[in-house]
């Protein structure tokens, strides 16, 4: 069973629908024990970091995610979920989970060409192979919508980068955790392929 973490952040149902489409059992839940007992975990979400962290804490879900990470369960972060795993966010000056060291920073407008939010389809330059991207064409595009982006301290944690205003970390990987700033559930066939790969993933960070 895949647990989709429910913390009042929008967009949970679209991940569930994609899992249904792939024929994978999943449940949207805010139940601590259900989450730590799940086979794998999706941590999605759109919205603001401050409110998201407050909602997570209220339900002790911050502890559930950290425990799931420590017990090596495969975890997939999406969009806001990807930002929340960092240490701090400039959005609402929020202290986050700190699973990956570094902060979440706001895009600053560079010129008329660059609007915020970064909204639409963009490519990813993968720095190495990863099980989640097996069978995904390198020139595939993915759907982004965000005004903040993660900035990990350790470059080893950056799996993929995307160009918008600056070159930013669009995919993070740390052992059994993979996290992406784009929405795989809204990125057509390549996004569904990533979700399908996640459903089979054993949590190992490398491709043999």
């Amino acid at each position, binding site marked *: 069973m895949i647990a989709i973490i429910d913390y009042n952040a929008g967009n949970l*149902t679209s991940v569930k629908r*994609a899992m249904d489409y792939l024929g994978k059992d999943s449940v949207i839940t805010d139940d601590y024990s259900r989450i730590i007992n799940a086979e794998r975990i999706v941590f999605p979400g759109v919205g603001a970091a401050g409110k998201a962290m407050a909602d997570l804490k209220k339900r002790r879900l911050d502890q559930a995610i950290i425990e799931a990470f420590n017990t090596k369960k495969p975890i997939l972060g999406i969009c806001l979920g990807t930002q929340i795993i960092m240490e701090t966010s400039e959005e609402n000056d929020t202290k986050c989970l700190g699973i990956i060291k570094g902060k979440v920073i706001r895009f600053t407008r560079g010129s008329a060409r660059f609007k915020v939010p970064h909204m*639409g389809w963009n490519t990813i330059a993968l720095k190495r192979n990863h099980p989640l991207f097996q069978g995904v064409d390198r020139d595939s595009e993915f759907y982004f919508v965000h005004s903040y982006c993660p900035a990990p301290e350790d470059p080893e944690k950056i799996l993929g980068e995307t160009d918008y205003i600056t070159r930013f970390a669009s995919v993070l990987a740390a052992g059994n955790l993979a996290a992406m700033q784009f929405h795989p559930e809204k990125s057509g066939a390549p996004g569904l392929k990533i979700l399908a790969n996640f459903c089979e993933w054993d949590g190992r960070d490398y491709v043999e």
Partner: protein
Amino acid sequence: MLSKRIIPCLDVRDGRLTKGIKFKGNVDIGDPVETAAQYYMEGADEIVFYDITASHERRDIMIETVRKVAEKIFIPFSVGGGIRTIEDMRQVLLAGAEKVSVNSSAIRNPGIISEGAEAFGRQCIVLGMDVKKVRVTDKIPSGYEMVIDGGRTYTGIDALEWARRGEALGAGEICLNSIDADGTKDGYELTLTGLISSNVNIPVIASGGAGTPEHLFDVLKDDKADAALIASMTHYGSYTIKEIKSYLNSRGIKVRMNW
């Protein structure tokens, strides 16, 4: 680099497309769910549904349509038309839409933009703008005025002023429709699009007037618009999305070519 989005717009009334849509080599279909699925397969980057159901009591039909679409297509889609309250927004978003678009209702009650952004996030709220070119006056310094009721009612609100206000209130995107260009197939209103897009810091979707792929090139080049709405040019089989995108790609506009 970010791709320019090509977005087909479907008009829906009582759960059916208002006109049949004919894909190349296909028969007419009037089902919004099947049509959306077809556009998804053909490489649309996003889909817009515009609900023109007259009666508010029949809104549940649209919600059911949104739910069915969300089971079949895995790209973003938005729903506009008849969204008057936060509860209307909630229903559409819960049914699976990414975004809701407010138009006349925002003119009548601008607070719905900020309330919607607060409740669901800015990225969910699209400000739909219907605009007509008018004489420049003190009240309408840009020479573009906001209109409602399909262009029949002038509001006395300057379009540029309204776009800036909409952004300040929390809109995450603007869908900018020129009533003058709409239905002409003579091309988008480029001056209007450039004016609005260069004066806000949120994405602008150009709407109204598309007849050929070159019209899309004109409105997307030099970053006038971030996305282009299309309707009849693909609805009746004159072009496929792929043909439009190949043309844009050949002229140096970055579009998503792999899906």
